[in-house]
């Protein structure tokens, strides 16, 4: 591909591993794994919380007597919920809720650190801004559709599709998840009612929060699939040690 000649000089010119710039900066590596831990805890506990009322509504209110927007095909952990299954799961909401909030704080602190560092270090400008990518739309999409292994130049920055996906998750999806999640706190809504009202009400916020979680789960699954396809051990090692290694 013609692109290969435009790869930044120093990164390729260096011959030894140690002299190469890190594939991932130390801060990216730390925040990546903290985010992985908190996301796992949030999805697990969030799924568990849903089981106590697997029905979703739009507007401010919704309960067992009202018509649901949709209902998940799972039994509930409460016997009043009209799921149609004659089976009640054990109640696990106590620890699930506590873990959910604690993991959310971990994600928020990690995110703040990452955002501040990303702005001031130039990481966002260099590696996440889609317009700053040297890739061509068609070529990248065609490569992805053919499941082609990544180009060596990608060992040092993100390609166009990665930039788009990561930017959308970091700057749109995660903030919307936090916004809709905070709206589910009554005390938060007392302090800042605009949050819940901007989303169309309390139950709308809950439904939006659920769809955000689905979208984040899809992103994580695709992210993992891409890593497996591109070399699971090599990329995982790069996210731990920071060193890029050339393709075998």
């Amino acid at each position, binding site marked *: 591909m013609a692109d290969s000649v435009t790869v930044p000089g120093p990164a390729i010119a260096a011959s030894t591993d140690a002299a190469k710039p890190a594939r991932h900066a130390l801060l990216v590596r730390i925040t990546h794994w903290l985010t992985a831990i908190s996301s796992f805890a949030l999805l697990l506990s969030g799924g568990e919380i849903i089981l106590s009322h697997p029905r979703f509504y739009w507007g401010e209110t919704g309960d067992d007597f009202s018509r649901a927007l949709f209902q998940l095909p799972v039994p509930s952990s409460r016997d009043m919920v009209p799921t149609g299954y004659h089976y009640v799961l054990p109640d696990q909401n106590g620890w699930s809720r*506590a873990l959910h909030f604690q993991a959310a704080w971990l994600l928020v602190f990690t995110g703040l650190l990452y955002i501040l560092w990303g702005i001031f270090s130039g990481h966002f400008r260099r590696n996440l801004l889609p317009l700053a990518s040297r890739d061509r739309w068609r070529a990248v999409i065609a490569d992805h559709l053919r499941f082609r292994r990544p180009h060596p130049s990608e060992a040092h920055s993100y390609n166009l599709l990665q930039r788009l996906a990561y930017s959308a998750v970091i700057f749109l999806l995660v903030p919307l998840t936090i916004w809709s999640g905070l709206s589910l706190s009554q005390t938060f809504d007392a302090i800042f009612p605009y949050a819940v009202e901007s989303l169309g009400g*309390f139950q709308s916020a809950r439904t939006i929060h659920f769809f955000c979680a689905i979208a984040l789960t899809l992103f994580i699954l695709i992210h993992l699939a891409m890593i497996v396809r591109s070399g699971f051990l090599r990329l995982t090692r790069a996210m731990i040690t920071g060193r890029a290694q050339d393709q075998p």
Partner: protein
Amino acid sequence: MKPITRRRFLTTGIVTVAGAAGLYGAERIANRYGLIPPDAATWYGPGETLDYDVQRIFGRNALAREFSPSQITHPPFRNELGPPLPAAYHQFQQNGFRDWRLKIDGLVSNPTSFSLSEIHSMPACSQITMISCEEGWSYIGEWTGVPLSHLLDLAGAKPNATYVVYRSIQPDDWWDSLDIFEARHPQTLIAYAMNGKDLTMRTGAPLRMRVPRQLGYKSIKFINHITVTDDIKRFGDGMGSSGPAGGYAWFAGE
């Protein structure tokens, strides 16, 4: 590995000592201003404490959202009741709760108790607010009752009070507490009516606590005993409510 230089050793040492001192100081300050929830000493204490602190620092007096009469949910949802009510409850119920009394004691200058008719004759307060459950459902209703702060004033709650404990007719299964700010909050009611009618057994007759800034499980039904205190650790297992034993946090503004 980088060699450990004297400078590195000193910086690490100073940072560690400053960090430890900072944590110690933060804990002292948090304790002094009542920013540590009673059940904070659990695995999930840090998360609950941060939620509690942020909400107390930024919105101690914020008012829960109120709705218009047209937004009231019909038919009103009736949550399932907990353990079966004791025989004594049904005796009260049979004569229209005429003998039900709400006792107030603890850190008050005149421990007293009020009958239902005394409570009905006090200045009433109505609010159209949302009740939301930790399970995920929510409904809007109009609750009428007496602000808890009015009852605290009548009993002469002392200025050093930090918590208000409240119990239902099933004191072992259902008891809870509010910090003094939530207890004195203008929307915290001892409610006796919902949507213009007296409470029924399913909605907590004859008296129900109504805490609209927190989850439904703080709005305990069948209230008959309030205790004002400056030492929440003396009650039950010291966690501030019957919730933590079942895994549910004392602070339910989350």
